[in-house]
């Protein structure tokens, strides 16, 4: 009698515990992200109820066959192997039973008997044998299927803590369960259990859960907590923290053009720890690192999914870069309009552009003006210079810079690609430095591809002392956002090996920079390090020449002039950073946060030689607010805080104008 069933049970001795399984029965379809070996062990050790096949329904009056029929049918391909075996067990035993029609007192079927007095799990609403887990705190039933689903919330960049999973019933933290096994044993860990098994004892073996008087502490030996079956929670938390730290060390490189800040790139968080010594070392190691990039750049026209396959960090950078590219396009459009306006006006004035240029920056010699052509002159001069440039000038520009800057010509767009090329010429670092930051090509940059290949070649062959921004420019010109990411990959280090700008820019912008993170800490995003926006002073000479005293006047005159000229309905300070935010936002709120927020990290900027985004102390609350806004509403691009950024941009503009 009992023999047949026990023999069939013995055949699968290794798979079951007390007629339940070691693996889930498909109640949940999501990922099994708990530690299954640990769970199996706990089941075998009778510290956690086995995964029983749940009953859809249960009635005490049912006979064994009805119970077995009510068992949830077995799912799913992915657990097919174990499941099939269990099914086989069931079928074998029931078929062997059915061969013996026998008396009315047909032997009980233990696999049905275990369901006597079944309990409904309050979460999945399915019925399980009464030997079910109970919450350690409030003694509520919970099946193992549901228990393994309960876990800590995944830490996120905005919530950098991992809180205990709370009890679903009483919300007490550090959820855990206690399991009282039946007094008999079957299957695994049941040495001689088959002998012990008896039909007489079976009904008595149905445990009735008696309400506990006390709750168990989370560290009681009887308790299995959610953390025990997911021992990796700490590692996950660490991973997120590390990612956030990387992100926080990323800097947005802004460049001033006229009265605005143009984002030209981001540093990779990975290169964040450059100390002065390391920076020096990096100078020596430039070849090595560019070698790595060279390899990656070699693939840059390859399939996009290559980059999708990269780490999330890279993907974020990619999205950032795309946002910047679009923003630059916008800016270029603006500049072009402005240039047209200016051209009209200047034509009317009949005075040569040269005259105006010298008016504007009297102290700056012609070459200097060209070198950072865009700084003293508003947008137009940049564009004009580019317009005159010939595509063939990619080798090296011998054209007198002054002629560029003085021959106004608004038709800049189509010559954009030149920028990246001339930026590659090793001998003209400062040239390329500023040039490369000129806006990228028109929306569909594909036609520029050949040039970008040139760029790559040039880049690979370039000597030490990389022109930092030419990378970006080349990348941007070369169409793919992926390329853009690649371009940025090492900007941080490459920039920091350019020694000249260091003292200059830090002095120029330090006066206007502030450190809002403290204020940010008051917000609910307290734990989130805020990325820094760095303002690049592209030209060492100009930066060095900046004198606080001479600042104010040219700046104000310039900006007012600009606003007057542009005849735009928008305020004089266009919302570039905001544009960025909007673009970046869909993909990553972090990214957008990074773009529009700033934080002071004087140490960092001092080392790399770039001043920070000069958010003045007064403006920091708004910035913080903005930051919070971005984080809080993850899909939002902010359009609300334009003015703050604009103001900040204006502030930076000041030192630039002093030269």
């Amino acid at each position, binding site marked *: 009698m009992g023999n047949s069933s026990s023999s069939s049970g013995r055949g699968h001795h290794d798979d079951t515990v007390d007629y339940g399984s070691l693996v889930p029965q498909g109640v949940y*379809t999501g990922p099994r992200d708990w530690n299954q070996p640990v769970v199996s062990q706990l089941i075998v050790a009778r510290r956690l109820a086995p995964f029983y096949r749940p009953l859809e329904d249960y009635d005490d009056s049912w006979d064994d066959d009805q119970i077995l029929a009510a068992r949830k049918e077995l799912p799913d391909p992915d657990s097919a192997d174990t499941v099939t075996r269990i099914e086989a067990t069931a079928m074998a035993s029931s078929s062997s039973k059915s061969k013996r029609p026998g008396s009315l007192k047909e032997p009980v079927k233990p696999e049905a008997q275990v369901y006597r007095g079944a309990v409904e799990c309050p*979460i999945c609403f399915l019925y399980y044998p009464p030997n079910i887990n109970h919450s350690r705190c409030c003694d509520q039933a919970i099946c193992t299927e549901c228990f393994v*689903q309960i876990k800590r919330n995944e830490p996120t960049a905005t919530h950098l803590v991992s809180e205990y999973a*709370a009890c679903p019933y009483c919300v007490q933290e550090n959820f855990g369960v206690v399991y009282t096994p039946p007094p008999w044993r079957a299957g695994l860990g049941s040495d001689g259990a088959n002998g012990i098994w008896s039909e007489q004892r079976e009904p008595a073996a149905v445990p009735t859960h008696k309400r506990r008087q006390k709750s168990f502490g989370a560290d009681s030996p009887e308790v299995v907590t959610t953390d025990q079956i997911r021992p990796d929670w700490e590692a996950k938390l660490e991973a997120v923290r590390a990612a956030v730290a990387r992100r926080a060390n990323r800097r947005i490189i802004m460049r001033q053009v006229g009265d605005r800040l143009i984002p030209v790139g981001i540093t990779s968080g990975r290169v964040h720890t450059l100390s002065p010594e390391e920076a020096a070392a990096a100078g020596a190691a430039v070849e090595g690192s560019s070698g790595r990039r060279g390899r990656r750049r070699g693939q840059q026209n390859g399939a996009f999914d290559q980059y999708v396959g990269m780490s999330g960090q890279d993907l974020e950078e990619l999205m950032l870069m795309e946002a910047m590219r679009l923003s630059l396009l916008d800016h270029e459009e603006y500049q072009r309009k402005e240039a047209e306006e200016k051209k009209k006006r200047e034509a009317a004035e009949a005075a040569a552009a040269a005259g105006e240029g010298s008016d504007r920056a009297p102290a700056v010699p012609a070459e200097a003006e060209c070198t950072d052509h865009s700084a003293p002159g508003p947008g137009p001069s940049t564009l004009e210079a580019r317009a005159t440039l010939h595509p063939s000038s990619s080798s090296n520009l011998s054209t007198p810079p002054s002629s560029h800057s003085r021959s106004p010509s608004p038709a800049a767009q189509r010559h954009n690609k030149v920028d990246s090329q001339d930026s590659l010429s090793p001998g003209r670092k400062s040239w390329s430095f500023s040039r490369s930051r000129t806006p990228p090509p028109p929306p569909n940059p594909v036609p520029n591809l050949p040039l970008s290949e040139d760029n790559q070649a040039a880049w690979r062959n370039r000597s030490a002392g990389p022109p930092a921004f030419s990378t970006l420019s080349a990348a941007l010109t070369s169409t793919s956002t992926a390329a853009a990411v690649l371009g940025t990959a090492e900007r941080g280090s490459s920039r920091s090996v350019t020694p000249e700008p260091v003292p200059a820019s830090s002095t120029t912008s330090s006066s206007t920079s502030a450190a809002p993170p403290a204020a940010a800490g008051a917000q*609910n995003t307290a734990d989130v390090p805020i990325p820094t926006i760095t303002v690049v002073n592209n030209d060492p000479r100009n930066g060095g020449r900046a004198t606080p005293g001479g600042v104010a006047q040219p700046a104000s005159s310039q900006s007012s002039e600009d606003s007057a000229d542009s005849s735009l309905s928008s305020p004089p300070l266009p919302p570039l950073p905001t544009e960025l935010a909007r673009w970046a936002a869909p993909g990553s709120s972090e990214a957008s946060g990074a773009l529009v927020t700033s934080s002071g990290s004087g140490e960092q900027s001092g080392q790399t030689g770039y001043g920070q985004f000069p958010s003045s102390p007064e403006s920091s609350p708004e910035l913080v607010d903005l930051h919070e806004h971005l984080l809080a*509403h*993850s899909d*939002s691009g902010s359009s609300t805080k334009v003015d703050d950024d604009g103001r900040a941009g204006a502030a930076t503009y000041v030192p630039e104008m002093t030269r």
Partner: protein
Amino acid sequence: MGSVSARRLAKELREIQSEGCPVGITLVDASDFSKWLFTIEVMGNSQYQGEAYTLQFRFDAQYPISSPAVQFVVTDGKEAPVHPHVYSNGHICASILGSEWSPVLSVIAVCVTLQSMLASCKKKERPADNDRYVRTAPDNPKKTLFHYDDDT
């Protein structure tokens, strides 16, 4: 049998149909297990006397482990109640729909909670950041990371 979500919802539905909804709550549509609609009325003396609002539940396959996406319907001439925790796009800032969701809660439990949230309202007003939020809000309120104010 489908996922736990469908199974549990089937059972919740059966219960609703056999036992009925609490007073003021009416099941409007539960034709599938992805979206249910209820109307909610606040009974008795309240700011919302005589007003009925439509509440929408969206379920994913991980329900009830993951919370349903619950919001007031604001299309077809329907409006969200004016309440300090209800945005004009129908999104609701309530902790039980987010971090304090528990799989033990049910659809009806959520309805009752929101009903009492309305009932306890002292002053009809929108959240302070309503415009800002609504302008940029995701379609699914579950994607919003609300900051819950405890003013209970």
